């Protein structure tokens, strides 16, 4: 399912949708568009995480702030058509593609 299919042209989140249980996955084009509409000094930002397959993801709960919320200034600048290029997946699918972080700690010294 893509995001446009989820929210429809009126951009309304279905009441039975659990945003924290889902992720939004998209490619470099959408990622660039998302960053382009965020001011450098914005207090509230959507910062996608890069997945191991080269795509990007955000928790779907950012959608709860899309209308009259913290992220409205971001979503209000994004054309609705872009939503068709965003895939809605289970959050567990996103977690499976998270990169393994490099070890920041020198365990030998502790």
């Amino acid at each position: 399912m893509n995001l446009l299919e989820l929210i429809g042209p009126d951009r309304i989140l279905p009441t039975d949708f659990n945003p924290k249980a889902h992720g939004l996955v998209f490619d470099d084009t959408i990622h660039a568009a998302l960053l382009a509409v965020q001011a450098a000094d914005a207090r509230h930002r959507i910062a996608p995480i890069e997945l191991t397959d080269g795509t990007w993801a955000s928790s779907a709960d950012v959608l709860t702030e899309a209308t009259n919320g913290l992220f409205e200034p971001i979503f209000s600048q994004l054309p609705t058509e872009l939503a068709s290029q965003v895939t809605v997946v289970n959050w567990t699918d996103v977690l499976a593609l998270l990169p393994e972080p490099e070890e920041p700690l020198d365990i030998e010294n502790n």
Partner: protein
Amino acid sequence: MKNISPKRLLNNIFLKTSGGGGGFDADATAYIAAVEAADGAALEAGVKTAINDFVVGCKADGIWTALKASCILSGARTLSGAFVPLAGTAPTNNNFVSGDYNRKTGLVGDGSSKYLNSNRQNATDPQNSRHQAIFVSTGDSLATGTYIAGGGDGFTGMFNVSNSNSLWGYISNGVTSIVAASQGNTVAFKGITRSNSSQALLRSGGITTSGSITSVSENTNRTVAVFAQNAGSIGFYTNGRLAFYSIGESLDLALLDARVTTLIAAYAAAIP
């Protein structure tokens, strides 16, 4: 003897006892006003009194000016209100939504994508005079979750390290940590500080542990992240819930612990 009308006298007494703003510390008043503006609604009298008591108490303890970047991530009615800085620059919110916030217990991370950029560079505070502190309402449950951290050679921060069931604290040294056993995922105040080049102090569970760890100069311009670490890239996110953070110069951790703990308890009592 100066005359004062009965009405004015009653007003003075009422305002001071109700926490309505009369007699409050100027910094507390400014913070309360900023939070209420961000919230779009007034705070409860008990919440305002708790804030004033915290600020006045920190000043009496001589630790107020050491708080250089700080947010009370609780108390406010909204997430925007919670991001109003108590000291220093406001943080930048990355991915947190209103549903992550609870007025009594604070803001919860997701362990994978949500963090605050404190907008405080780790290099800003002196190599041998710095602190970081947090109040944990729900402990991290991940293998290595970072409550707060940032930097390079002079890295400073605190981690839950679950495989050793401990809290690791780094302060002006990115290689060697000071360790508090069995404190990695516990709740309440945690803090780290140093006031000289040779000794680090880590406080958790009401106990301050000292370690002989030589400080190293910070060589990056990385900002300190909260709910994650900033070691050039953001990572090691926590899924813990935090109600307070502060970054700044060296201070007495036990005194700050007492003030923050009292503040969070007062919030719990004052918020319906």
